[in-house]
């Protein structure tokens, strides 16, 4: 029983990385853009956040830097796929490959650097409750921010005019264009905002979760986040739950290793990746479940004819 509260706490923390990235990708995809570059964007943002934190000592600035790096790289991607009509798959892959190379190159001296003392957080009163306090109320503020953001995004997509427009440009850009909406500019905005969220996820990873910088440290989390949007059938609340579930799988692996379970560590490390495949298979099996919420024009380029 001793290990359970920290396990829940670390699950929430690990889940937040996936949740932020997946919510960012969800905004992209709702606007009809499939961004395979998340892995590379997270790497660059993780480095930007880490470097900022090393030099300024400020967590807030680190998150801003991460979000800026994510938004900037997303803007490059967005400009290419939206105005130059490049293939979304190939361009996203290019971003992932470039991000991996660039972050490894630019980050080489930060592998030696250490962050200043990491601040500890706890919500007064609530964090004093035995077990529950330890499990839920001693998290980094961004963990709660991610939950608030999920609720806000749910409201925005389902209940606001802006959300309706966003969904329209993902479902039928032709109709939105005919109604006079600047489809390409709106798509670009969605890509940049989504990129900023993916960037925040990278910054959270390197400055809060690990906290250190290693080449290739994202280790597939960007891809798992991409799978999460499908798994959650493009609904924010399900994305958050799915992210915690995957965070739990990741943590379970460390927990089992800590318990001295007699399985080679590599098999346990495979768990998150295998879980992603299993979940993808389960959810994709029934194409109708996917189609209900999948943006109809996802991944399809749009160029206005007039």
């Amino acid at each position, binding site marked *: 029983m001793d290990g359970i509260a920290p396990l829940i706490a670390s699950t929430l923390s690990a889940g937040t990385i996936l949740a932020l990235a997946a919510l960012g990708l969800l905004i992209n995809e709702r606007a009809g853009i499939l961004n395979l570059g998340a892995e590379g964007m997270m790497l660059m943002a993780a480095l930007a956040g880490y470097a900022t934190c090393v030099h300024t000592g400020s967590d807030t600035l680190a998150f801003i830097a991460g979000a800026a790096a994510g938004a900037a790289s997303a803007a490059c991607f967005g400009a290419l796929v939206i105005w130059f009509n490049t293939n979304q*798959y190939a361009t996203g892959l*290019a971003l992932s490959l*470039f991000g991996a190379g660039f972050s490894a190159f630019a980050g080489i001296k930060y592998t030696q650097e250490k962050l200043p003392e990491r601040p500890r957080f706890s919500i007064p009163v609530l964090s004093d409750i035995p077990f529950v306090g330890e499990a839920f109320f001693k998290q980094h503020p961004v963990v709660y921010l991610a939950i608030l953001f999920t609720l806000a995004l749910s409201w925005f997509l389902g209940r606001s005019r802006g959300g309706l427009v966003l969904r329209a440009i993902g479902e039928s850009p032709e109709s939105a264009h005919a109604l006079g909406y600047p489809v390409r500019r709106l798509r670009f905005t969605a890509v940049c905002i989504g990129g900023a969220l993916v960037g925040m996820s990278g910054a959270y990873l390197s400055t809060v979760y690990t906290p250190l910088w290693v080449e290739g440290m994202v280790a597939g989390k960007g891809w798992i986040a*991409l799978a999460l949007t*499908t798994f959650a059938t493009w609904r924010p609340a399900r994305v958050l739950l799915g992210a915690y579930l995957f965070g739990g799988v990741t943590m379970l692996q460390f927990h089992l290793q800590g318990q001295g379970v007699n399985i080679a560590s590599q098999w346990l490390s495979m768990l998150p990746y295998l879980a992603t*495949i299993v979940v993808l298979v389960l959810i994709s099996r029934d194409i109708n479940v996917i189609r209900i919420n999948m943006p109809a024009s996802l991944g399809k380029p749009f160029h206005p004819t007039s």
Partner: protein
Amino acid sequence: MFRLEVRPQPSATMAWLSPILALAVTLVVGASLFAMLGKAPLSALAVFFIEPIKNGYAWSELAVKATPLLLIALGLSVCFRSNVWNIGAEGQFILGAIGGGWVAMQATEESSKFILIPILLAGIVAGAAWAGIVAFLRDRFNANEILVSLMLVYVADLLLQYLVYGPWKDPAGYNFPQTITFAATTKLPKLFRGFRTDIGLLIALSTAAALWVFLFRTYAGFQLQVGGLAPAAARYAGFSSRRALWTALAISGGLAGLAGALEAAGPLGQLTPYVPAGYGFAAIIVAFVGRLHPIGAVFASILMSMFYIGGELAQSRLGLPKSLTGVFQGLLLFTLLACDTLINYRLVWHTSVKPNAQPEATLAKPSVKSPGSA
């Protein structure tokens, strides 16, 4: 300002020119990067583009790295042409090395030289089987092949680590994570005395020729490409998209596996955790730069191999990190995709026509001719 205007027909010239243009842009960016890092740009670029081809030995090293890149890129070209997005070639490469390595470990000094055939076959089968998982999950459960193939890269990497840290670890290896060194009989025959280039190069080049025939001279290859270009047309013609999926993944997985087995039995000679060198991902760039064409892939693989060797040289000669290779590779693909836009569009400089002047012009000169005027 300029804008993009759709060309009446895709430009064949630009299709050839685009990779060259992209390379030029990459070079300019690279040169400025070197200047920023305080290195003389021209001599730094020479490390990437002159040193790797300056003599026979350098060419041989170039070929050693170009061989796996070419084999994998050939398979990926077939895949991408049929619109199957296998991006997990790295995993299939690892499985090929594991499969080929397992057979090679069984060999003794007395084994016949023909042990090479089962080694390479095991690599092909293992790689194709790993890709087969992707095909099966896509075919049977409609699971996205991009994500599944990619997740399997991480699984393959961990599987390799499990083997070399665990059951396959060399008992006499001072506890290093590595298998035994394969028996000398499993070594691939070298092409020239004193050079590292082996028959893998010939295998890769003949595969390129074979795939050219398959893609452009056989009905099966044609069916595969129609499925990629126009799925509706392929369905109408009765071409099976399921068969295209399985064929594309079997070919690309098999070739990536072959590359893995060649790497294990060739330059490596044993399995270590460092078998995956990113060839599977770099080959994606090779395939695109080579225009998804077998002959183009040959040239593109040489270029990408230059980036690899240049990165190593930049580390030893200029004290720059080896990861510079990845920066250049990513940059090249980015600029290539941007340049590819010029195949279907042309840049038109805006002569400043007032937008409200246009309706009048349309009225004065009706674009639709009346039936009588014809």
